[in-house]
């Protein structure tokens, strides 16, 4: 009797431990970070007939915001869509990379940012479904397709938005500084040369309203110039040529002119103080890709309404944008491809534009684009669709490489920042960036 109860007690204890251990271990095997669990639901599309598709995105992609998921689910009642959002790309991408390679834990659709697409194309080509056979490729801009195409011609991602660039400026501050305020005349003044844009900055600083600067940061000017150059950090053979690249040299020289003058507010983009500066209106211009329109509107708030205006940038440039691909690890490939095609179709891209001004990568949508009324009013009735589509059509084809992003960070957040904020000379900044890039490339 006694031994019996003891034994049963022990059994209970063992059972409890076993349950605890397996339960916890199983919990780890499941995809449990970000509190997202999408392993439930019919995974093969058969059986109950319900398919759950998960979409992995970063930042504010706009699909959910524009109501696209709901619309699709209404059109396809047997599909449920879940979005797994990671705010920061620098967290999103390493995580996605490891999952792609493990062949597990990926979403059915995975977003790829432009800065990572070269790495995806060159190293993860076999981990994505070839979408080239599924769609009419001519819908997209050629350079957009080219960025997501592997050497053997596979298209691993469908283009979502692009980032054609303009210059957003504060009309009211320009007026106080005695500068031209008309957007077409301004664009005429700096057309073709970012150097002229900087020259105008010198004019601005002569009569600058107190407490204001001409531009947010030297790095933003650097990015703006570089993104309009055809040569960046890599050549078309995939070799790193950053220190010989004419594009980098050009962008660096213009950025140095800004960094060594008094026209920069010396901010770091996407940092809290940058947001605050929008709210306080302490800088007069910023190079703004289409997706930044919504950001400016949000951060400048009601006080900035009607004060901002948009002018064409000196050179056509593209900054940012993304793709969506279907990992081969997806168990619902067919359904996922269908959804990806639908999400990136011109009509849907136009809807995202109407919501948050993310600019379509499908030219056929351009004639139908209509920004939200609030946006138009906010930016002094500027014809933003016109300005951005003009830029989009003349953007040069750019070559991206595997370590594009860390190299860019080294130049902006090490090199330029040292000159701009620590008062070092342009040569010292260049040398520091060089050291950093050597470290990045493992040289």
């Amino acid at each position, binding site marked *: 009797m006694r031994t019996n109860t003891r034994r049963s007690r022990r059994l209970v204890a063992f059972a409890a431990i076993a349950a605890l251990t397996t339960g916890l*271990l199983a919990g780890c095997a499941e995809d449990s970070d970000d509190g997202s669990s999408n392993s439930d639901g019919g995974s093969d599309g058969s059986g109950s007939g319900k398919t759950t598709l998960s979409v992995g995105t970063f930042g504010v992609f706009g699909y959910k915001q524009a109501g696209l998921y709901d619309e699709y689910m209404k059109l396809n009642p047997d599909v449920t869509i879940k979005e797994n959002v990671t705010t920061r790309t620098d967290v999103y991408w390493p995580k996605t990379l490891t999952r792609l390679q493990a062949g597990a834990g990926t979403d059915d659709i995975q977003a790829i940012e432009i800065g990572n697409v070269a790495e995806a194309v060159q190293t993860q080509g076999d981990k994505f479904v070839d979408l080239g056979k599924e769609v009419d490729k001519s819908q997209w801009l050629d350079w957009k397709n080219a960025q997501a195409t592997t050497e053997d011609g596979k298209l691993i991602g469908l283009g979502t938005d692009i980032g054609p660039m303009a210059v957003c400026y504060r009309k009211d501050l320009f007026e106080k500084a005695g500068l031209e305020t008309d957007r077409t005349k301004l664009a005429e003044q700096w057309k073709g040369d970012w150097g002229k844009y900087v020259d105008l900055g010198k004019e601005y600083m002569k009569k600058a309203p107190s407490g204001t600067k001409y531009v947010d940061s030297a790095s933003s000017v650097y990015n703006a110039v570089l993104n309009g150059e055809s040569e960046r950090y890599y050549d078309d053979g995939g070799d790193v040529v950053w220190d010989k690249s004419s594009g980098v040299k050009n962008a660096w020289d213009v950025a140095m002119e800004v960094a060594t003058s008094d026209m920069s507010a010396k901010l770091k983009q996407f940092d809290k*103080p940058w947001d605050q500066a929008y709210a306080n209106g302490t800088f007069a211009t910023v190079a703004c890709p289409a997706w930044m329109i919504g950001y400016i509107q949000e951060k400048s708030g009601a006080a900035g309404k009607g004060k901002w205006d948009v002018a064409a940038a000196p050179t056509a440039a593209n900054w940012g944008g993304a793709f969506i691909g279907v990992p081969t690890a997806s168990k619902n490939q067919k359904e996922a491809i269908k959804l990806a095609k639908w999400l990136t179709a011109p009509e849907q891209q136009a809807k995202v534009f109407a919501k948050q001004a993310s600019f379509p990568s499908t030219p056929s949508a351009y004639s139908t684009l209509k920004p939200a009324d609030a946006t138009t009013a906010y930016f002094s009735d500027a014809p933003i669709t016109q300005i951005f589509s003009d830029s989009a059509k003349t953007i040069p084809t750019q070559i991206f490489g595997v370590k594009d992003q860390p190299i860019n960070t080294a130049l902006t957040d090490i090199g330029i920042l040292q000159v701009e*904020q620590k008062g070092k000379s342009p040569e010292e900044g260049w040398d520091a960036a060089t050291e950093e890039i050597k*470290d990045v490339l493992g040289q």
Partner: protein
Amino acid sequence: MKASPYAFISPFFIFFGAFSLVPLLYTAWYSLHNVQLADLDNQTWAGLDNYQNLFSSDFFWNSLWVTLLIGVISTVPQLIMAIGLAHLLNYKLRGSTVWRVVMLTPYATSVAAATLVFVLLYSWDGGMINWLLDFVGVDPINWRESDWGSKFAVSTIVIWRWTGYNALIYLAAMQAIPADLYESASLDGANRWQQFRHVTVPQLRPTILFTVVVSTIGATQLFGEPLLFGGVSGSKGGSDHQYQTLGLYMYDQGWVIGNLGKASAIAWSMFLILLLIAVINLLVSRRLRKSQ
């Protein structure tokens, strides 16, 4: 019969094995290979190349130096203040529980929340600290980019979070000191300060040693505070790596640059540094025990 105690402690060891020991050994394996984040399956033998590369890199020595400096300027004032606070709390106070809870709140705050507040305080343009400095006629300091300012700023976050925790540990130890020691000291004519120096501190010695060890380990692994203090591209630890600790350098190499082999070598170097500290600690504590 004999199996049950082992069964009871087994969950810990299973977890330790799965999530600490295996990764630890796997990291060692990685550190001897050339491994890229984007190409995990393609590992090529590199021998000690990663370590050689590391020890000849200025960035590594810089981050070691930064870790040491921030470690000293955060730990030393922190522990001194903690002893002082514990001493004050040890007096009969009204609402002593309230004070003790207040002491522990910074410790209960998340690193992220605390750091974000400090980032605002230390903001170059319009931050409260620069605003206060302005009153005494000091020019605004660019806390994030200045060499010493940034180290100081990061240290204050650490100090703010951990002082209360250490104070409570000291307080617990102080309350275990027999009252008759103080009595006889005061009979001998020792004042409060002398009592503190000659009774409290010697009695606290083992506790002090414990907090020093724990703080040193914490300082070696310092990561969250400088990362978030840096904001965008915080893993660089400033444009001149002026607050890039070893932890940040490892993260930057592994997850930002994607060089996992080298990152693993950094991880193992940190591990060896901690072992070294543990050995030194052992020798010191033996010394102390002998001298008592």
